[in-house]
């Protein structure tokens, strides 16, 4: 059997290999997805974001177990930062999900950011598509957890769960930094520790300010480590899903997300084509030198490079 047939038959090795090929920008992978795209059923994508150590992986593990009880097939993409110095990474999210490794209807994949700054990697969307074709009903994306710049998850997920912890002192800070706009559901994890009620109150007060919104994100207290509040959290996620479906917002969101993906794919391809030509002609170095020596202004130099697309 070839890789397409194996993927459709639920072969995990085929699924894993195709994700790697996408991560490595292998053109053959794009050709395969072109053919297989129509087999995808439209898996529901749940983003799990929040600061480092807030319990994203533990929570993802517990949420997956609830979905497994309902016999749903689950994919998990867990992202950790790539070192900008070595290009290497330590991907450690599986540590909290080891019980799931042997479940035939769970597929877990760790990814390094490989230079992306928005909390997920460039290949994350591609991996979501592969897991969708593989037959997953739900796909979790655990973002890196650096905190403030993880906006890409909104452009990739259907529901975004923001994981917070009590008494970090950063609650107010996080609210200022725009986290309020990202979240569809707030989960205050580690609520076995003191201060969860205060954090909940602060969040609710902030949500009171957005009166006109038709959907108000719920704020839940959970303790993933103690398996508390997980069913309620799933119910809140499902409620958001229903809201999106019934209001027609789900389709709008997906159109918006696909548009974003198209922009990024097009940008990457154009830059790749132009840069290949520029490097081939040694143009970049030559122009940079000209600009430095004031024989040429930077904007004309840029025009010269951009015009390569037509050649």
């Amino acid at each position, binding site marked *: 059997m070839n890789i397409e047939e194996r993927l459709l038959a639920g072969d995990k090795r085929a699924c894993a290999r195709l994700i790697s090929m996408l991560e490595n920008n292998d053109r053959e992978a794009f050709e395969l997805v072109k053919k297989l795209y129509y087999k995808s059923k439209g898996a529901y994508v749940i983003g799990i974001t929040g600061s480092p150590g807030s319990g994203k992986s533990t929570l993802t593990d517990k949420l997956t177990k609830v979905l497994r009880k309902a016999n749903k097939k689950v994919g998990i993409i867990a992202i950790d930062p790539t070192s900008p110095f070595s290009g290497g990474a330590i991907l450690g999210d599986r*540590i909290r999900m080891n019980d799931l490794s*042997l479940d035939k209807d769970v597929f*877990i994949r760790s990814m390094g950011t490989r230079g992306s700054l928005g909390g997920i990697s460039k290949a994350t969307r591609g991996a979501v598509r592969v897991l969708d074709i593989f037959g997953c009903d739900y796909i979790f994306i655990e973002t890196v957890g650096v905190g403030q710049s993880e906006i890409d998850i909104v452009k990739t997920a259907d529901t975004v769960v923001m994981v917070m912890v009590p008494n970090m002192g950063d609650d107010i800070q996080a609210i200022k930094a725009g986290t309020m706009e990202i979240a569809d559901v707030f989960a205050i994890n580690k609520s076995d520790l003191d201060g969860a009620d205060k954090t909940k109150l602060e969040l609710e007060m902030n949500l009171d300010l957005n009166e006109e919104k038709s959907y108000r994100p719920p704020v839940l207290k959970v303790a993933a480590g103690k398996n508390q509040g997980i069913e309620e959290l799933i119910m809140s996620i499902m409620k958001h899903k229903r809201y999106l479906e019934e209001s027609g917002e789900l389709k709008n969101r997906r159109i918006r997300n696909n548009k974003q993906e198209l922009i990024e794919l097009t940008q990457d391809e154009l830059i790749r084509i132009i840069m290949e030509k520029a490097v081939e002609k040694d143009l970049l170095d030559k122009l940079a030198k000209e600009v430095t020596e004031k024989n040429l202004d930077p904007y004309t130099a840029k025009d010269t490079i951009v015009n390569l697309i037509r050649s």
Partner: protein
Amino acid sequence: MDRPIRVLVAKPGLDGHDRGAKVVARALRDAGMEVIYTGLRQTPEQIVAAAIQEDVDVVAMSILSGAHNHLFPKVVNLLRGEGADDILVIGGGVIPDDDIPGLKDAGIEAIFTPGTATSDIIYFINNNLKR
């Protein structure tokens, strides 16, 4: 294609700590590899399932507690059973010299005992990948 080498660093068996494995994981990261780290007390079945899903090039295992003659070959056999014999398997930990030839025959392609420089491990991986 310039792609990072992916390595699963795993601790099968009942060892109580993983300092050594963490040192190796960091060294491999600093050498530009993507290291999937799964923590303590993994069964061979879990290691193989993770290796498949993560599509790794290398499985690197470490054992201090003495079950290597059983656990290391079991991982190799399970990988073969999955058709994943293009994954390089290496081992480390407290392993008596007498056990090393048997482990190599069983398909563990290198054994690194305590005191091995991490640069030796990196060199071996870079030069012995099977794909």
